[in-house]
């Protein structure tokens, strides 16, 4: 029995000291810590993480540094990347810290010389896969999981691995036809990354997307929407969902079941990067070191961003099965391949042709 747990009472933590919130188009700016007027220093963080999920550690850090104000701007990964690129060339004011789940884009930024290193002992202590050049630093530990509806999927049919999934999708009249959702990889950076990694991990990928195509898989946007739709029963299975969100939702909704595939489970470490032109790089370094400290890790675990695979755990989300083979996605220049224009085009073309235009389905 494997227990995959989140030690979070997630929704309780939402921004108790979030003074101001601006929702400005796609981005939402939240402020933590001291008032801007009285703050002696302001740390600006751009991130793709939900503000609610990221708030506890931001608050904790704001408390540790006297008179510190933190401006957290939540934006999508692609915008984050474009902003950071413009910040790198000086066209736009750079943030002090960029935290993104699109780790390939983070690596690309560092590769393009847009980052500065943080050679702290905490960073040095990280395993090699969780950092690159001390510039891109993995803060979290988030598996890519299969989300299913506990009420509607019979226990015998819960896929424990990709082989199970392929087998389940083989019959013409299977339960899941038209009721499987995954990220629209053309729009979701994380979805693309997971799909591209899947393609490299195993030969099952070809058969899997072919099965997806036959069963009219819905490729759509955003973890929250897919998980909601799985909970409501509109979809039965969500494939390659980011475990952190899924576990957070599952904690509050017993209809949601989660499986870490036993053949292999991709693990993503949300990566932080200090832009070259950051105004307060030392504050940013302090934040990274704090996030990597025991206290920081505890907070991230409670927010579901660090998922522990602990048999003795008794968290809200538990799943039966054998120990999954965890495959962390290494922060390395290999991730650049997925961002190559031509390679990306080729991969998307393969994806589109296999899925048969399913991406344009339900939003």
């Amino acid at each position: 029995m494997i227990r995959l747990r989140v030690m979070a009472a997630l929704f309780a933590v939402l921004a108790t000291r979030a003074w101001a919130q601006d929702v400005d188009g796609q981005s939402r700016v939240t402020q933590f810590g001291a008032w801007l007027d009285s703050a002696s220093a302001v740390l600006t963080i751009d991130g793709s993480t939900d503000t609610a999920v990221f708030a506890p550690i931001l608050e904790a850090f704001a408390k540790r540094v006297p008179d510190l104000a933190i401006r957290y701007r939540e934006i999508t990964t692609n915008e984050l990347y474009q902003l950071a690129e413009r910040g790198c060339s000086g066209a736009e004011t750079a943030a002090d810290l960029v935290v993104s789940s699109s780790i390939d884009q983070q690596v690309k930024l560092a590769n393009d010389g847009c980052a500065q290193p943080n050679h702290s002992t905490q960073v040095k202590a990280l395993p090699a896969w969780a950092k690159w050049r001390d510039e891109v630093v993995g803060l979290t530990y988030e598996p890519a999981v299969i989300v299913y509806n506990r009420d509607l999927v019979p226990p015998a049919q819960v896929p424990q691995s990709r082989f199970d999934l392929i087998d389940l999708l083989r019959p013409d009249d299977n339960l899941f036809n038209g009721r499987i959702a995954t990220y629209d990889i053309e729009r979701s950076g994380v979805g693309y990354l997971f799909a591209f990694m899947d393609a490299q991990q195993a030969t099952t990928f070809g058969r899997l997307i072919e099965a997806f195509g036959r069963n009219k898989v819905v490729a759509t946007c955003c973890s929250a929407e897919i998980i909601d739709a799985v909970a409501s029963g509109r979809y039965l299975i969500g494939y390659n969902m980011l475990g952190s969100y899924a576990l957070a939702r599952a904690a509050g909704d017993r209809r949601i079941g989660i499986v870490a595939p036993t053949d292999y489970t991709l693990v993503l470490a949300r990566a932080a990067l200090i832009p070259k032109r950051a105004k307060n790089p030392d504050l940013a370094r302090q934040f990274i070191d704090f996030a990597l400290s025991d206290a920081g890790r505890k907070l991230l675990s409670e927010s579901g961003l660090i998922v522990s695979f602990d048999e003795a755990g008794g968290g809200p989300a538990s799943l039966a099965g054998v120990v999954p083979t965890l495959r962390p996605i290494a922060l390395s220049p290999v991730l650049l391949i997925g961002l190559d224009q031509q390679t990306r085009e080729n991969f998307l073309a393969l994806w589109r042709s296999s899925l048969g235009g399913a991406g344009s389905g339900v939003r």
Partner: protein
Amino acid sequence: MTEPGIAGRTRSITVRLAATIALILAAGGVAISIAAYAYGRQAAQEAYDRLLAGAAFQIAQSVTIIEGHVVVNLPVSAFELLALAPDDRVFYRVIGPDGATITGYDDLPSTATAKEDLAFYSADYSGEAVRLASAVRRFAERGFSGQVQVVVGHTTRARAALARDITTKALVLVAGAGLALVALVAFAVRTSLGPLVRIEQALRSRDPKDLSPLTVSTPREVEAIVAAINRFMSRLSSRVTVMQNLIADATHQLKTPIAAVRAQAELAIEEPDPARLRTIARRIHGRAVGLSRLADQLLNQALIIHRSDAAAQEVIDLREVAIRATDETDHDLLSSGLDLHLELPEHPVHARGDALSLVEATKNLLSNALRYGTPPVWFSVEHDHAKGTAEFAVTDCGPGIPESDWKDSGRRFARSAGSSPDSAGLGLAIVNAVAEAHRGHLTFSRTAEGRFRVTLAVPAEQDGSQ
């Protein structure tokens, strides 16, 4: 060890060797450091250049032509290869036949002419030094003909680290070898100075009166020192012996004449007759003259023995020696100028020696001949080219010393039967001592005419070799 008598002590051999070795090691160390760094750099360069080449070839291999278009599907393995330089930024660019970038970093510097299939070059890109490899793949397809150039590069952090690593390891090795060398040298110095310590101990533990040669077994290199010590010892020993003999001789020699003088003097005290008293006084005078000559000779011998050891030997012309000896010879002995014939060659006869000793020796020979021999006396200087000797020869017409006594005549007080009371017989002993000091010899012979001839021969100095 600050013993008196050690003059101007120089630095110890160990210190000298250590300084020399340290100097050599320092110079060698610098040279090796430079070499190691150069080697490390080159090795790192080659290693990572191969990596780049591999990646470039893999990417080139992944290029396909689909419907006349260049399609690049970047192989993961190529990037995994590049990621073997774990902390280096990676750049790539695929350039079509028209020079347009197909994919990758379109401002990445490429070789101006992509003629070679594989080329390496360095450049500055995006604020860092970058090493690049360019590979070319040629296509001749139905709808496409031309070449595609793949440029792959990365920053040089891993190279620098590897170069540093190789250099450091090499230097550590060299430093270790250096230290081992120093230790070995220290050991070798100690071991090789061991014989000196043994010699010192042998000398120290020796009885002060013991002047016999040292019998310490020593390596060849130290033999010279032992030989020098032994030479010094034997000289010391011989001088001590000479001094002892001299004292013994003097005592022995002086005893009899002094006793005689004393006896005569006692007779004189008792003698009332003035005429006989005068006779006694004359005898006393005779004895006293003999005694003073004896004392002269003893002192001369002491002087010559001293000089034979101490005086510097220089190249001298024996003719000058002969002239001086003739001049200084007691002229009372010459009854007439015709009695002494000085025969000198026209050319200088050079030999290495002490002029004063030789003058004394030849004077003795002359005196002997004039005093005891039968005139006329011939005194000649000759250069025997065949034997390589220079000779003084004194010849007289008397019977000379009997052949039976020739062997002993050089020795002290080996007085022949005919020696008179006023001759101590020291003359020939002095000559013999001088001859030995000059590595020469004293010989007696008879000429064809039956004349008695005494020859003092010393090694001749080759003319012009001064």
